[in-house]
């Protein structure tokens, strides 16, 4: 198959998901469903302070409680650790402070929710009772909550030992922005505040560790997006060999980014299991999710756009402060991706974004679905709206004038990814995609509708946003495709399934080459015992990298199948076809050979030659290296109505036109787009992870932190364009994050449009009804 072909036997079809039967009948196995003989349960003692010194920990009363097996602090663990820190920071020249997390907090705690000790007991109920009996002598210290304030001189220090809170500093830039601004006819400035909340997979995190004393090895089941990275972390922390640690991801109830990090609890249950010789389970509860699982949170942007009189953008510059939280759980990537995303869809000659990353006494920040790119898009689109309004140009038209035209594709952006890879926009027709969205949303007729509504005292508005999203981050993912002597096809991959239909996608890709029978294929995703290396699930990369690997491995297996069948059936390879569990001679269905027979033949017979000069085993492992990212693109248009008394925003309609290259399963692509859009609506209007000035979290349940529910979800029109990427053999681009990236920017643009009679400028996201009502009131008072 090459990327110019359209849908195949199963590839490109909305086949039913292989995951669904177990999930629909309660037979799926999530981490909390595991029950091992002799298993104990853990609860975690967490810091109640944003910042405090820990003077002492008295475990006596807790240990005396019946049913409690151990209370373990950093001091207790240390003799059993080869490394007492989680060294995870992605490399970057931008770092100024090494803020990798400790195994557990020791003498100082730097955010509410930071793990301090583990209680191991017969049950979680008892473990939680014992938590209340541990006496910790805290000495509270000044805490810093706001990332902007954190960089002011004299601000409280997040960590006592650091010189200040500036953990990293960098610039994303190209062209000569200073020169452009010196001579630009028009410039437009904005100060923006952006906030995103947490991942909030409905399944929280969790891990079960089991040390096998007899075999001297460890198995960790974890609700993680990155099992292989987790395995390597455990090797490093526990001082084991690679062969001694197996990490398995059972069914995972959503990831959305935060589960790609490796966490203290995973290491702690593993170490504790080895120390106690018993399997140990720890399951995060929702309050813990709010105070210990990574989030995205705040960014402050000061930005400026330079244009000519017709709205052609000449340059963009500014600076941004990014909230890093108390520790490095991943890297500078959220801030970097945000800065890099700003100009992506547009042909802009000069760009400079200076970024300062600030430590705060809050939960560490790492990517949430979209990884900073919604924020970058918001910046660009807010500036374009402002320029359009001031210059009197239609907002769609100013974008049309600046979008990279299809004739310039592939287009080299003079930027490097955070991994140093050249940004090359590989394919797509951005203006066409925008037009498709506008046509569907009725953009051109909207002004008349708006006038009519206003005449009735109704405030409706329309807004839009374009995006280009890097997907399929390399360097590789692997897949093994094996036909067993039962005739069943097994597929193993290091890609991690967390609800995004990875197993179905892999099965479709393999089935396309090997008999087109989905039922004949089983996929294991994210078990380090089945494949030696893997990167895991993040950055919309599964179909791009793991799908490509499965495709290439299937082609190798297919070739072997056909070679053996050709010899045995005495038919030319071109005359053969693979149908279900057989290789048959085309047109002569009785002349066939079972996959199982070929598998047996290639498993070898003592003393005999392998058939058809083939190498042993009907299997292949491929790990294609694809460094360049496949850039997906799209346009969102939102239509809203605002009740100016209450500030309530009702989204009447969302239109999303997008291009994720070739589509493997249209049903799944639609599901990813709509799910992402729902997250974007939440980011625009609902989700706020609040902290007070002492860095105490003030939104730690779903009464205080709002997730979108079914009635708030607007109707969505999806438009698909398929520009195959030349970067992988399937021509696919990632889609998992494409729905979220433009949605909040388009909604905020629509709100601003609806409120245009009041001349309001929307510079914050999320925005609540109360804030909108207050802005309207203030404008009316003037």
């Amino acid at each position, binding site marked *: 198959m090459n990327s110019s072909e359209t849908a195949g036997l199963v590839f490109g079809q909305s086949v*039913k*998901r292989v*995951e*669904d*039967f177990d*999930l*629909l*009948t*309660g*037979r*799926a*196995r*999530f981490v*909390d*469903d595991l*029950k091992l003989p002799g298993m104990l349960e853990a609860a975690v003692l967490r810091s109640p302070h944003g910042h405090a010194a820990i003077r002492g920990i008295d475990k006596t009363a807790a240990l005396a409680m019946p049913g409690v097996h151990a209370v373990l602090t950093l001091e207790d663990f240390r003799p059993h650790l080869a490394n007492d820190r989680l060294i995870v920071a992605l490399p970057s020249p931008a770092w100024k402070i090494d803020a990798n997390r400790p195994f557990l907090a020791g003498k100082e705690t730097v955010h509410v929710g930071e793990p301090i000790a583990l209680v191991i007991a017969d049950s979680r*109920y008892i473990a939680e*009772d014992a938590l209340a009996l541990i006496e910790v002598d805290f000495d509270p210290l000044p805490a810093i909550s706001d990332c902007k304030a954190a960089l002011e001189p004299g601000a409280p220090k997040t960590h006592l030992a650091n010189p200040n809170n500036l953990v990293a500093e960098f610039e994303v830039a190209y062209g000569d922005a200073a020169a452009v601004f010196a001579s630009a006819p028009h410039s437009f400035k904005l100060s923006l505040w952006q906030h995103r909340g947490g991942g*909030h*997979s*409905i*399944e*929280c995190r969790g891990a079960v560790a089991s040390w096998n004393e007899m075999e001297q090895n460890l198995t960790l089941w974890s609700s993680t997006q990155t099992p292989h990275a987790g395995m390597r972390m455990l090797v490093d922390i526990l001082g084991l060999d690679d062969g001694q640690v197996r990490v398995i991801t059972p*069914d*995972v*109830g*959503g990831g*959305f980014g935060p589960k790609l990090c490796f966490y203290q609890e995973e290491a702690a249950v593993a170490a504790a299991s080895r120390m106690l010789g018993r399997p140990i389970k720890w399951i995060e*509860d*929702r309050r813990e999710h709010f105070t210990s699982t990574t989030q995205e949170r705040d960014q402050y942007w000061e930005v400026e756009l330079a244009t000519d009189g017709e709205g052609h953008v000449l340059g963009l510059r500014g600076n941004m402060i990014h909230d890093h939280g108390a520790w490095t759980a991943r890297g500078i990537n959220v801030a970097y991706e945000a800065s890099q995303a700003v100009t992506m869809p547009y042909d802009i000659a000069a760009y400079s974004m200076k970024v300062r990353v600030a430590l705060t006494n809050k939960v560490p920040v790492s990517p949430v679905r979209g990884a900073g790119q919604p924020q970058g898009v918001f910046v660009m689109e807010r500036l374009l709206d402002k320029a359009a309004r001031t210059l009197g140009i239609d907002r769609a038209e100013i974008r049309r004038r600046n979008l990279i035209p299809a004739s310039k594709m592939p287009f080299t952006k003079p930027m490097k990814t955070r991994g140093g890879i050249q940004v090359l926009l590989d394919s797509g027709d951005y203006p066409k995609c925008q037009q498709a969205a506008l046509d569907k949303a009725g953009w051109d007729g909207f002004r008349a509708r708006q006038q009519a509504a206003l005449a009735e005292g109704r405030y409706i508005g329309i807004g839009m946003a374009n995006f280009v999203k890097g997907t399929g981050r390399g360097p590789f993912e692997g897949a093994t495709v094996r036909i067993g002597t039962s005739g069943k096809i097994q597929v193993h991959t290091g890609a991690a399934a*967390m*609800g*995004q*239909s990875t197993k179905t996608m892999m099965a479709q890709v393999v089935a396309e080459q090997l008999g087109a029978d989905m039922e004949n294929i089983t996929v294991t995703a994210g078990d380090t015992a089945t494949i030696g290396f893997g990167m895991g699930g993040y950055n919309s990369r599964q179909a791009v990298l793991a799908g490509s690997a499965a495709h290439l491995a299937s082609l190798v297996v297919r070739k072997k199948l056909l070679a053996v069948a050709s010899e045995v059936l005495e038919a030319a390879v071109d005359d053969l076809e693979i149908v279900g569990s057989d290789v048959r001679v085309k047109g002569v269905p009785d002349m066939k050979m079972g996959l199982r027979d070929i598998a047996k033949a290639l498993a070898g017979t003592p003393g005999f030659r392998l058939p058809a000069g083939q190498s042993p085993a009907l299997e292949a492992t491929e790990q294609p290296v694809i460094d360049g990212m496949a850039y997906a693109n799209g346009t969102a248009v939102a239509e809203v109505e605002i009740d100016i008394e209450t500030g309530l925003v009702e989204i009447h309609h969302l239109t999303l036109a997008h291009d994720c290259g070739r589509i493997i399963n249209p*049903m*799944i692509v*639609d*599901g990813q787009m*709509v*799910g*992402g*859009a*729902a*997250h974007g609506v939440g980011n625009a209007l609902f989700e706020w992870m609040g902290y007070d000035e002492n860095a105490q979290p003030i939104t730690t*349940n*779903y*009464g205080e932190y709002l*997730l979108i*529910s*079914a*009635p708030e*979800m607007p109707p*969505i029109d999806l438009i698909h364009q398929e520009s195959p990427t030349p970067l992988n053999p399937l021509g696919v681009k990632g889609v998992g994050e494409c*729905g979220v990236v433009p949605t909040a920017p388009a909604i905020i643009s629509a709100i601003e449009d609806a409120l245009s009679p009041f001349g309001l400028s929307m510079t914050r996201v999320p925005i609540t009804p109360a804030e909108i009502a207050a802005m309207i009131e203030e404008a009316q008072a003037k």
Partner: protein
Amino acid sequence: MTEMRKISVKVNGKAYEAEAEVRMHLADFLRQKLGLTGTHLGCEHGVCGACTILLDGRTARSCLTLAVQVDGHEIMTIEGIADGDTLHPLQEAFRDNHGLQCGFCTPGMLTTLIELLRDNPDPTEEEVRIGISGNLCRCTGYQGIVAAALDAAKRMRALS
């Protein structure tokens, strides 16, 4: 705190008897004592709806119900919806309309919709949305779930 009680309960048509601490909530009882792990916990404070079960035919949050409260009662969980390996029309509709991604919210969605479709066999889209407004799903954006519910209603009407 550790007082134990014997609880007799019928779950998915089968009689069970088990001891539990009086403070144990029903979800933990089903999952840990009866081994019925299909019911999920997403928040344990009554908002997400993942733990929804049918208690004497009516939806209840099993995270907000104590195990001792169900002594002598009847419960239906996700494990009791299909007939062996034959899916219920609602489950079929979920599969055909992509009503689930990670599937973690699914147990609560299914039980909630079983009640809704029983009480209102021909709901409007809005009625479905309001009906599941107490069930959070982070994956689907609800579109597939709503489509599945409406499709299931049609299938179930055709059967009855």
